[in-house]
């Protein structure tokens, strides 16, 4: 078994530190988009509240519990979205999350944990698009 295949995230101080003090786990005042997503492997659940001003995401906040990878993944996804540096529907968005966390070799099962926050944001935006189309 390749012990490095997940880059043993528990040995990385910056990941533990980010887990203990993540960004964007907060209430968002004036939020107008909401979504909830569940990790089908373990049942962990994240809620996201997003505030959109003039078509731009101006703030977002998560609520929920998850493993270390879920929390740091959501925190990093929030950072990238607010920087507006990536199209979130692009594969580059997920790669950027993994790159920033140094988790490029994560296994498929744990990738679901890392991406739960990103998926929750996407879900909120999908809902908004489908509302607009109605």
């Amino acid at each position, binding site marked *: 078994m390749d*012990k490095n295949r*997940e880059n*043993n995230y*528990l040995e990385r101080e910056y990941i*533990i530190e980010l*887990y*203990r003090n993540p960004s964007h786990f907060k209430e968002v005042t004036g939020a107008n988009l909401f979504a909830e997503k569940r990790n089908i492997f*373990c*049942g*962990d659940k994240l809620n996201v509240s997003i505030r959109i001003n003039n078509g731009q995401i101006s703030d977002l906040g998560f609520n929920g*519990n*998850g*493993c*270390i*990878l*879920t929390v740091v993944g959501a925190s990093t996804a929030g950072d990238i979205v607010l920087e507006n540096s990536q199209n979130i529907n692009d594969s580059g968005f997920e790669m950027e999350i993994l790159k920033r966390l140094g988790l490029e070799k994560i296994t498929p099962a744990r990738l679901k*944990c890392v991406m739960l926050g990103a998926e929750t944001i996407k879900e909120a935006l999908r809902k908004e698009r489908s509302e607009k189309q109605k």
Partner: protein
Amino acid sequence: MTEFINKLDFRSQFPLLRKHSSLIYLDSAATTLKPDPVIKAVDGYNEEYTANVHRGLYRNADISTEEYEGAREAVAEFINASYEEIIFTRNTTESINLFVNQYVLPNLYRGDKVLIQQSSHHSNILPWARACEQKNAQLIIAPIAKNGLTDFEAVKKTAAGLKFVALTHVSNVTGEILEIEKLVPILKSQNVTVFLDSAQSIHHLPTNVSEFGVDALAFSGHKTYGPTGIGVLFVKKKIMSKMVPLFWGGSMVLDVDRKLKPELNDIPWRFEAGTPAIAEAIGLAEAIKFINRHGFKQISRLDKILTDFGLKQITAMDRVKLLGPKSIKNRLPIFTFYVQGIHPHDLAYFLSECNVAVRAGKMCAAPSFYSYDAGEATRISCALYTSTADLDFAFKKVDEGIKRFAKR
């Protein structure tokens, strides 16, 4: 105490533990490891006398039929049942579904009462819940009391008027040993049909269907040192003879006439359509021999040592909350616990990095967790090859994990 366990040297009897000498396997409630004779028996069928059963007229066909039916005899003797009362299935889940679908459902009517336990595995909850839903029957759930045990009084109160009861001998979450010797007589005095899930108890506690007084019982081979793919359903002859087969095809009929009317085989073979899990049944018989060689007296002594050791360790730990009874009297060495500030998947991953294999999640028993108002947990579960040193190491690592990455 530790000397007693070390003297037994169970680890050396399990090839996987010989191969992975540093592995501490603490997920035996999910599946047990397989000892040498079981693996040898399965290989023996595949390498030396492969043949289908109940068919061929050549030597190997005779041997395989004798071994397969010998396995049925071994199972029957192990639980003090008759040979004809043993149906081989794939696993406990299939056994329960077979019993519920082919006996409970046809005899269940609107308004009938069925009792299940909150602490049961999904496999001993969902088939019953579905049957009740289909027939508009009343499903009653025996709750887990504050002491971590199934609320005995609640069961007793509902006994009158019940038609079926599905019990779990040992909870796969809390390790609770249900006092069936006290409970079943009360239920039987009310003419209730009693089913018992023995998946977690079968290799820890002696099983005697006649003493227990149960009407049906199920367990899996793979949780009792045997192979995967083989399960057992015991059903009293009187009840089994009223059951209609679920699967139709080869083996389960003696003949088919010109109008395609089948002449059913006798019980229990009419419930085993198609080629059965021959090698696996033979492996299960070896697993039973393995258990009998060590004996329940020794197994029980080991379980008590492990339970006592585990309870003392776990209850002394900060941030750790144990589910289920805290007394050695009512439980087996199955320890499910929360660690404040650590997600169970992170803990399980960390332990895995330390060569300790544990389970994390809801253990396929979500209703058990509703008593504790919390999500998932971590489970340590023991078998013959577990030592107090294994538990000591695992709990030390849990403690290390708390220090290293728990949320403060």
